[in-house]
């Protein structure tokens, strides 16, 4: 679902106007924009470049440098499998593989119905619960491959019941 320029909400402009200076504000502006739209499509990047009076190439360069920023939309339910070392040695790979086969998508991809996206994440710092999976910020600890089906099922039910937008 590409965003056209008219869909850019005034909230982003209000945020940009509220900043004291133009120096070093690109990162906070990108964080805000991603919070508003869920991702950073080219139209939004161009708009930010124009408002901050910096080249669009610079904005693109920064967006693509940081893994936290994404240029494609994510699913309604964002599944992140922690692949930090503590989780890795407790077999997080098998959990990730099970999610891949269960959802039919690879890491970094989103399902056709935009319901689920799957990512491998670097350490959420809950190493005591390894291996860890988070779905839209809710953390599941000590996940075994056989738990995966239940977790997916839980969100399939939720997805069918309500249609509110889930944000981080």
């Amino acid at each position, binding site marked *: 679902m590409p965003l056209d320029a008219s869909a850019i909400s005034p909230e982003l402009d209000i945020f940009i106007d509220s900043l004291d200076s133009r120096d070093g504000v690109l990162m906070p502006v990108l964080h805000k924009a991603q919070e508003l739209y869920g991702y950073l499509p080219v139209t939004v990047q161009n708009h930010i470049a124009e408002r901050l009076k910096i080249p669009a190439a610079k904005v693109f360069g920064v967006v693509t440098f940081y893994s936290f920023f994404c240029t494609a939309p994510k699913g309604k339910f964002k599944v992140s499998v922690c692949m930090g070392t*503590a989780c890795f040695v407790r077999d997080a790979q098998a959990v990730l593989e099970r999610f891949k086969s269960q959802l039919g998508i690879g890491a970094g991809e989103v399902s056709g119905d935009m319901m689920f996206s799957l990512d491998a994440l670097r350490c959420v710092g809950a190493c005591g619960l390894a291996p860890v999976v988070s779905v839209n910020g809710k953390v599941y600890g000590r996940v075994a491959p056989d738990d995966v089906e239940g977790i997916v099922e839980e969100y399939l039910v939720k997805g069918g019941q309500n249609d509110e937008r889930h944000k981080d």
Partner: protein
Amino acid sequence: MNRIRMHMLVCGGTGCVSCDSTEVKDALVREIMEHGLENEVQVTITGCFGFCEKGPIVKVYPDNVFYVRVSPDDAKILVGEHVIKGRVVEKLLYGDTPSDIPFYKKQMRIALRNCGLIDPEKIEDYISVDGYEALGRVLTGMTPQQVIGVIKGSGLGGRGGGGFPTGLKWELTAKAAGDKKYVICNADEGDPGAFMDRSILEGDPHSILEAMAIAGYAVGADEGVVYIRAEYPLAVERLQKAINQAEAFGLLGDHILGSDFSFRVGINLGAGAFVCGEETSLMNSVQGGRGEPRIKPPFPSETGLWSKPTSINNVETFANICPIILNGAEWFSGIGTEKSKGTKVFALAGKINNVGLVEVPMGMRLGDIIYSIGGGVRGGKSFKAVQTGGPSGGCIPASMLDISIDYESLSETGSMMGSGGMIVMDEDDCMVNIAKFYLEFTVDESCGKCTPCRIGNRRMHEILSRITKGGGTLDDLEQLKDLGEIIKICSLCGLGQTAPNPVLSTLHHFYDEYEAHIVDKRCPAGACTELLRYTIIAEKCIGCTLCARSCPVPCISGERKKVHDIIQEKCIKCGICYKKCPVDAIERK
């Protein structure tokens, strides 16, 4: 005024919150209200107790009782039995008193002193444990030079991994010419498996703000920046609350405590780039650019953020500052070894019984941390190695468990202190695979500026992948060593200079495992699936056909009640037959 006779502290660290500790707190509050005890019993969310393995944790004062793995359903019995009748709930106990728990016995908490003791969201709690007293003492009775003198005298070294003397860093920044200077707190804890900075920020955010203000006074800066990972939302939230409170109390802002000193702190969010933990990359990121490192010299103390003199220290380093000011340089330098002073926080994780945060004096025996504090290896397996220093460090084998934990000894093993991650590995972990895992991380996280790091690490990763699939040669090992040395010498920043360490250290300590993969085409730990071979032990097979029916290929033949056989050419090594066999008749080698 209400007289609170009992405090119930519930851990609010990320680990425990993920196990519903917030619900535990709510349930306790509900239960206490129900009995009309809200004026005498107080329930508080605190920072991390460190014992993440047993979370959620509830500690009761003044009884000093330590409850573990508490669920919301336990609130009824905790209030009914302990609070009302004064009877300790045995089934939720870990030990008699916290000081008896082996996990805590050998620890010495300086940086973590307030974690699990105070409510991190209340500045009054922090002030009640001598918070902001060090800042007051500095502003009213010490010159900036005296402050630097105390920190230098304490021997405190940078806890982010390098161990550079903090006092010297402050002195260089103070001496640098410039009207505008900065203090930065590096909270971009990207090392997977390390979570000490997060716990300190979540559990005791004011101690970091106070220390940053002291640093600002010492170096002549009026502005501080905390650069923190966006992946730590709870820490960001608590830090922002702390900043607001400190400003409201006049402990940050203009003319702090009526002095001429003004200092403000702002938060900058990272965006998931490991290289931004490197100081100059971090500064480029704060300035709104790509987090690529700068050439040093000039060092940040001369040309740092916005090209102004900047002192940048790690969270744990800052956490040590106030106790040093209050207790004196000699007190701190009396702890630890000759060259490494004070304590160090480690995040114990992996195949260890007591996962959690521990703080120990420098110089403790590595084996003591793993066995006395960590409770040894999980599930009765045998210890193989401990990885320290994350993607920049290396693996230390069992034969070296007697080494002392300090900067020098760890470097001698080919590993490093790093930020303090300690991942324990057992017999099932393949060292070649672990080296490959770390390299995959650095390949992903290399910013791409220096060719040896960008391309060299990729080549090393390809070689390791080949070895784990059985296609390696002994020449590959020589090439890994050569490449590793070149990448270390030719890269600009700490990421590239240390990236080959996990490979080089495992090559050094576990050469036989690499050899087994190459010469025997065998993975001794049984972790590299493509080198595994499943066979049926004829004497044990009862011919139940369970394996043949479970095989997804299928590649198992055999009649009922007769010995089965696996056709090796077809086998995809999924291991299902191995798990299904009721009589352990399938061998995996």
